[in-house]
């Protein structure tokens, strides 16, 4: 395992994660479809998860990988709630575009 890390170097993992993360961020910024925004957020989380794994290998310690399970579980719970909200929104408004969510402002 570690030889791979030695060849690739931890920095690149970080860069990859950052890039993925940024993609996620951009997704949140630019997409207006709630589902896709969810997915972008998932991308962010998974980018982090990836980094976690990389770090745990890097440090030769399992905590990181365990943490990934935590975060995945949490993400799942989050999405569940999110989707529930989304459903009720769709029921009430017949759309899932977050641009329509502008009743509260000022």
């Amino acid at each position, binding site marked *: 395992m570690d030889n791979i890390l030695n060849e690739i170097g931890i920095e690149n993992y970080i860069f990859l994660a950052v890039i993925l993360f940024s993609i996620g961020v951009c997704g949140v910024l630019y997409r207006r479809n709630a589902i896709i925004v969810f997915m972008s957020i998932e991308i962010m989380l998974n980018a982090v998860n990836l980094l976690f794994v990389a770090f745990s290998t890097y440090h030769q310690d399992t905590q990181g990988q365990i943490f990934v399970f935590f975060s995945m579980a*949490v993400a799942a719970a989050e999405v569940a709630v999110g989707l529930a909200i989304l459903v009720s929104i769709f029921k009430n408004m017949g759309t899932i575009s977050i641009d329509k969510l502008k009743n509260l402002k000022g």
Partner: protein
Amino acid sequence: MSTLIAIIGLGILCLLLEIFDFRKAIIPISIIGLLAVLGLNISEFNSPEAYYNNMIIVSKFSTSFSALFIVLTIFLVALSHKFHENNQAHISDFIAIKLFLLAGAVAMVSFGNLAMFFLGIEVLSIALYVLASSDRKSIKSNEAGMKYFLMGSFASGIILFGICLIYGAMGTFDITEISELSYSAELPVWFPIGIILVFIGMLFKIAAVPFHFWAPDVYEGSPALTTALMSTLAKVVAIATLFKLLTAMNAEISAEFQTVIVIVSMASMTVGNIMALRQVNVKRMLAFSGVSHAGFMLMTLLITTNAAGTLLYYSSSYALAGIAAFSVILYVCYNKNNEDINNFHGLGKTNPLLAAILTGALLSMAGIPIFAGFFAKLFLFNQTIQAGYISLVIVAVINSIISIGYYFKLILAMYNKEPNEVRTATPFVIYAVAVIAIVLNIALGFFPSLVLDLLA
């Protein structure tokens, strides 16, 4: 530790009671239970200890704050009955969620490990998402929930990233180890970046400028009781956690970091107050006032002596005032579709007591003497000047002047306008909560040392 377990147990008990169809009993039992938990928690006060190889660390800090959270939860649970009158079917869910939320809160102030911290914050957040959108039929509520959810999970992503970087730098999630390592000379740059990311994530949770935009919308949209919860419990939890994070994890805060804090705090106060001036919706107004108070509380990150005590004092005074205010708001805006200021017209005539209580709460938030709010500000200013941030204090002072503008707008509405409705019977529980909250607030004002010296 046992506090945390007890709370979760209580939450489960609520669900069970629902199953066994003791719906009536749920609220009383959970209140009694919470009181018991409170006692339990206090009993732990003088026995700091670490559990599950430092997953949970019970300290004076954690217990005292947990106590505050529990008290607030008691109030909120008490208010639930009236609030969910028409929705008794799901009463157990609401209560249970609140209790689990409390569990998350307690975990957040007593974590000894970033994993615990993350779990805590997520438990809290998810519970809040649910509560925010709990009024399924109302578009506003949905929107609020959605907004909160999207931005909240975005923030969690940031926090998670931060944690990850910290882990990457330190190779551990354990707070104590991290802080030991943080003294060592050679630190990878990821560590401070990680700290900053977590910091920013938390700034979002306490709704500090420029991460505050969600607050007013969500506060306005959510059901009033949830707003109460957010503006009191959630805010206090977040600031306490942030405080613990920054103090526990890295040794000294660099000068630049301090400037960042100063700027954010100034910005939060100013923006919050100025924006609040022109609000007509009371919940919205209080949201902005909450933003400004977040700015005030951030000052505690800068001060050196007895910062924790000051923070505890400030947050308790703020939260108690908030509870008192919201219980009145709940009464006034009960089965109204909005919380606009004109609902309060003539409250001074129709219901003098509640009007007086609301006035007291607002005066406390505005920092007028004998209310705890004043002393909170006083101690804060005192120590901030001691730490040498006089300019920050000046800004704070100017802001407190501005804040009078909108707090008194509400008071004026209550006393100077003619009532536009007949007075309705006031449920006992609202009186009880409001009175107790404001009395506690004033008591804090008379005997600040009680709270102030807990963490000295």
